[in-house]
């Protein structure tokens, strides 16, 4: 992993809660689906560790931002699905607003030009 990658992975990890809420906004999902959605979105370059994700689920559930329920699969293990709550949606909304504001500040401080993209 290069230095750039480490920087990006660090940034990503700081927003795990919001990212998970963002994935769940699209629909209920169990752990591996969430993990895969994040991995696919990053093109597989940076992944958030599964252990980090389990800790995130537990914290989000304790804070009432997600609810969980067991699926009724008969084959193999039973999947624990997560569903975003209204409180979760509200927190997601305010986190996204905070992120947008922060990104603008950082872009201007680092002198990032839109045209570079």
């Amino acid at each position, binding site marked *: 992993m290069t230095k750039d990658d480490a920087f990006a992975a660090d940034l990503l990890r700081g927003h795990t809660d919001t990212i998970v809420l963002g994935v769940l906004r699209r629909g209920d999902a169990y752990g591996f689906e969430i993990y895969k959605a994040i991995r696919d979105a990053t093109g597989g370059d940076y992944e958030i560790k599964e252990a980090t994700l389990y800790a995130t689920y537990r914290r989000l559930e304790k804070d009432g931002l997600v609810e969980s329920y067991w699926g009724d699969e008969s084959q*193999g293990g039973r*999947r624990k699905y997560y569903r975003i709550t209204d409180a979760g949606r509200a927190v997601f909304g305010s986190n996204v607003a905070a992120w947008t504001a922060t990104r603008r500040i950082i872009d201007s401080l680092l002198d990032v030009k839109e045209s570079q993209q």
Partner: protein
Amino acid sequence: MNIDIHRLLDEAFLGIEMTPDAQDLKEEVRANLMARADELEAAGATPSDAAHQAVAELGDVRELLEETADAAPSRASDPYTALVQRHHVRPNPGFVVRAVVWSIVAVVGTTLAILGASGVIPLPLGPQIGLFGMASTGLALLVGDSLSQETTTNHPMPQNRAAGYFLATLLGAYGLGFVALVAFGSMPVWGIVFAALGVIASIILFSFLGATQTNRHKAWTRQLAAATPPNRFEREPETAARFGVYTAAIWLVTFAVIAVLVFTVGWWWAPIAFVGGCTLMMLLLARMMFAPEKKSDTPAR
């Protein structure tokens, strides 16, 4: 099906005390590992390699369990006031101003509309309807705006759902406004159609919102609630059942009295019976839920 997963998972959880919490985590991890191993197998790995890689990616499960174990108990011992202070959220000044404005709009609108409808102020029907519209919009804005505020105990409600409550309140209040217009005789009886439409739509919308509502209480409030001893109805279901039967009896009698009043002295006496029934039920509730407990060894016979 991949057998290795189960063996490796058992090894990973070896020596961990199997609390319900740990058991839950293990089952959750199991299903996720199987999905990951299936994926690896589809990419060409042998079942055994897939299982080993999936479990290796997981890391140490002990860390997960430790993290949640220390979080909870330290908070529960704090007294209520300290908790409230720590989590205190100041009301947003903009919201306070808006709430006052919405309330004034609602009160002024209702007052003028009723004065107009009862003929104290000479107003044509159009403006009366407009005033009730203004009043119910004020009331609905107050409801919607309040629900989307973050408070010390609750997370804010998302905009869409708060808008739903706004609409439900608007329809319900406007419907009641039409009831008032018809009752005061400033609108012909067919106006009751609007009233019914508004109130019924509002009931449907409120039921939908209520049924799909999820918890908005913040974590510390819920922990506190979990630590509070159960009330009498939870401890003694038979007392709760008795209360239910009494309540049904009270309301049956109340509605009978309402019917009698309507057909004898006139419909405007009906609310008296309603208030009576309500009061009786509240007294009964207070008596049954909070009455000093009788000692179980001296049965009251």
